């Protein structure tokens, strides 16, 4: 008589493919997962609680550290919420700068995802190709605001720095260069038969499930739902530019891959137009009171981060500090579908699916 036993395997918190300190306890039958329990919170820093004792300017550096791959969009969601609550006007030049850095950030973030996803699947080089190009974006950010990852760039009512001389031209040049690089990426992996066979049909779900789980971003669009806050609820200056929202059909990792690669291309399109229309002069800070004290009330603001819908909910009692601050973090919400997707998959697909969701642990645990 052969006796079989389920194997309980602890994947993480130190594991190369969990993209940070994240743990999944999986029950394995051979190599097939019968049950998966994600365990998170290893990177919890209590940002929301800390924020209750900080004024709004002080919270901005904390948002940098939530989704550290896409700090600019986090900056934006906070300052945008405060501005809306206070009814502040932001000068056009500042808004343009914000939009440009956010779109550059989206490209950088998708490049990180692209490289690490390929690394998860076992290809070594794409990671270095992606980081080589992301480096150019980070160098531009470094020139603009003096940091490469935690920018602390936006302020309530504007941005901290105006673009230095020649910066806009450098971005223009970079956009042209990145168009060419995208072709190279496609040649390097997008047609690779091994890669395609690894991701086609893996981790599929339908639109109903995706909405039920509250998914957003590429995870939602891969099922065919055309939902992009830049189009559906235009914020900043997105209504001025022409771009497409790529959607998939099957809701599998392959569609998510195609969508993210296409989103890079669309971001470059937005950047091209924004750089063309960039105003000659103007202020970068609006008229802002010395101490930022939003009136009593509450507000929820959401924008499209590279990972999905990032929201900021502020309850103000008229003080300089928020009474309550809550971030809706897309990584955290998107991760909730993981246990459902993993059942019945193999160990190898665990990595493919987890990578396909595109989480940043700083944001999941916040």
């Amino acid at each position, binding site marked *: 008589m052969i006796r079989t036993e389920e194997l309980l395997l602890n994947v993480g918190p130190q594991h190369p493919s969990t993209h940070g300190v994240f743990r999944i306890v999986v029950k394995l039958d051979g190599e097939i997962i019968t049950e998966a329990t994600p365990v998170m919170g290893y990177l919890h820093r209590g940002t929301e609680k800390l924020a209750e004792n900080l004024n709004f300017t002080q919270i901005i550096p904390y948002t940098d550290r939530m989704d550290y791959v896409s700090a600019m969009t986090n900056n934006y969601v906070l300052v945008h919420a405060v501005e809306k609550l206070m009814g502040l006007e932001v000068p056009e030049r500042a808004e343009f700068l914000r939009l440009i850095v956010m779109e550059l950030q989206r490209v950088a973030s998708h490049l990180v995802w692209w490289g690490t996803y*390929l690394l998860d699947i*076992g*290809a070594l*080089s794409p990671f270095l190709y992606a980081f080589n190009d992301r480096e150019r974006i980070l160098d531009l950010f470094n020139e603009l605001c003096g940091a490469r990852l935690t920018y602390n760039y936006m302020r309530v009512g504007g941005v901290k720095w105006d673009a230095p001389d020649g910066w806009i031209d450098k971005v223009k040049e970079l956009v042209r260069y990145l168009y060419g690089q995208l072709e190279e990426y496609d040649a390097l992996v997008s047609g690779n038969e091994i890669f395609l066979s690894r991701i086609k049909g893996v981790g599929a779900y339908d639109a109903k499930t995706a909405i039920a789980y509250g998914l957003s971003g590429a995870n939602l669009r891969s099922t065919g739902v055309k939902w992009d806050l830049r189009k559906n609820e235009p914020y900043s200056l997105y209504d001025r530019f022409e771009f497409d929202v790529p959607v998939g059909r099957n809701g599998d990792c392959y569609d998510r891959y195609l969508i993210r690669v296409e989103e890079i291309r669309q971001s470059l399109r937005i950047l091209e137009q924004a750089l063309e229309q960039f105003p000659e002069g103007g202020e970068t800070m609006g008229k802002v009171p010395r101490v930022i004290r939003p009136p009593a009330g509450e507000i929820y603001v959401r924008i499209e981060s590279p990972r999905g819908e990032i929201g900021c909910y502020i309850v103000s009692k008229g003080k300089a500090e928020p009474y309550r601050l809550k971030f809706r973090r897309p990584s955290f919400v998107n991760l909730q579908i993981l246990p459902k997707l993993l059942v019945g998959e193999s160990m190898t697909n665990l990595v493919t699916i987890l990578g396909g969701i595109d989480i940043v642990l700083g944001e999941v645990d916040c």
Partner: protein
Amino acid sequence: MQHYWNSPVTWGHAGIYLLGAIAVLAVVIFFVTYAIYFERKVIGWMQFRQGPNRTGPLGLLQTAADVAKLLMKEDTIPARADRVLFILAPVLAFVPSFLVLAIIPYGLNLQFADLNVGFLYYIALSGVTTIAIVVAGWASNNKYALLGGMRSAAQMISYEVPLVMSVVGVAMMTGSLNLRDIVIGQEGYFWHWNFIPQILGFAVFVIAAVSELNRTPFDLPEAESELVAGYHVEYSGFRFAFFMLSEYVYMYAIACLGTILFLGGWNPPLPQLDFIPGLIWFALKFACIVFFLFWIRATLPRLRVDQLMGLAWKVLLPIAIANIFLTALGIEWFG
């Protein structure tokens, strides 16, 4: 060294054999050292990087430093591991990797053992390493290691079949399994080499060989992104070095074998180029194969287990068998 084989055993001959063995060992160790160095360099170049360049001139001493570090490292054995098997596994992996080198002819008269079943000898001994890997995975008492060991067993057994089958065509054309005879059978211009008439067999051989080596895209047993390091996750220090060494010695052996079976061994591509020694031609072809292995490692992602098995049994094996039939027909019709 062939004439010693047929003469009676004396102390002198034994001594010569010992010296020869040490020489091969030195050559192989030298190869492994610089194969690792060039692998890192080549992959670095393909990724906009320099590769190792800090230790010694051009980083040439990098591997030596790495090995020295491994040897000086604390030797850890997990508390609940099966001690005997844990210690035995690296040895078991390493010994056959060196034994297979005995049959490799580098030139017409540069060979240790001229076995009539040379290729079968290679397959039989390299199979032992599979056992070592399963033993390592089991003895470590680690779940990742166990999964890696099981994967490895399945993979190496599956791919040995197409590997052997792909060479059958070559053996049929030569009428021998003796590696020296196979090379002699490929004399002439480069289109007389086996890789052109045996193009199917060559393709199957390359894929199966990469898989036998556990290298990308078939490196599932150690799949870093899933199984962390697979069967040697608990090994460190010189035991780990032994696994590493046997892996690269197999790479050496497979590259030699590919050169001999399909690329004409020490034969020059054109008989007019005969003035260049055969050993250099051998080394050139050998280097091309090794470079190819590095190159695909820098480019390709990894297969999934089920796809890996499917590829072996559903694709490679039928092709290899078809190749045997085609070869038989070819021999029948064209002589």
